[in-house]
């Protein structure tokens, strides 16, 4: 399930939902992305996250479908927050359960790499000198290329 929401999420609740009544899941991998205090060498006060409602969900569904072709995924969950976020706030959750750890590890990395380069979200950084939209980063483009 995909959720785009302003509210925070609870890691324990999400883990519980990934494994509830499923004894086939021998592995669960979860990733949480958070608002960091320093980005590219300057101090960050917070973030504003914008998205393209409708396309975001569609792009993420396509990313999940691609992951399901590559790995044995039992359950999966993606949550991405939008709106105003403070330092240390959670931004994104990706969780995958699988019979074995290799599939779960790879699938979560793949989902994050594609989410960062394909899903229509935009970050605006709040700094001491005002707010500025972030540029896409070459390292994220390189990260997604390894799956091609």
């Amino acid at each position, binding site marked *: 399930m995909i959720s785009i929401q302003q509210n925070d999420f609870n890691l324990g609740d999400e883990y519980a939902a990934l494994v509830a009544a499923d004894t086939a899941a021998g592995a669960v991998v979860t990733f949480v992305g958070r608002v960091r205090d320093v980005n590219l060498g300057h101090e960050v006060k917070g973030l504003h996250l914008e*998205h393209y409602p409708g396309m975001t969900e569609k792009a993420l569904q396509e990313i999940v479908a691609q992951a399901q072709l590559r790995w044995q995924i039992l359950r999966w969950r993606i949550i991405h927050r939008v709106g105003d976020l403070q330092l240390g706030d959670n931004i994104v959750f990706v969780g995958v359960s699988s019979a074995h750890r290799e599939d779960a590890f790879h699938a979560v990395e793949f989902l994050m790499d594609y989410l*960062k380069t*394909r899903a229509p*979200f*935009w970050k*605006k950084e709040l700094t001491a000198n005002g707010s500025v*939209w972030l540029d896409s980063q070459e390292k994220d483009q390189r990260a997604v290329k390894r799956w091609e």
Partner: protein
Amino acid sequence: MIKVLFFAQLREQLQCSELMVAEANAKTIAQLRDFLIAQHPQWTDFLSNEKLLIALNQTVVKISQTVQPGDEVAFFPPVTGG
């Protein structure tokens, strides 16, 4: 009509998030962009940015793509979520 959307930095630069264009003005997205620039000359530099991405009905496409009545076309900067 064709629904046109702008997001993030581009939305702020144009001071516009959404507008409608009559299909008679554009057969392709490239023509749609040229029409918007003709109507709003101050948008020229922002809409000519080579890095902009374009989505047709919520799927990323090339600017040469043709458009139909009822289509939704979005222009936006490279994505930075996650």
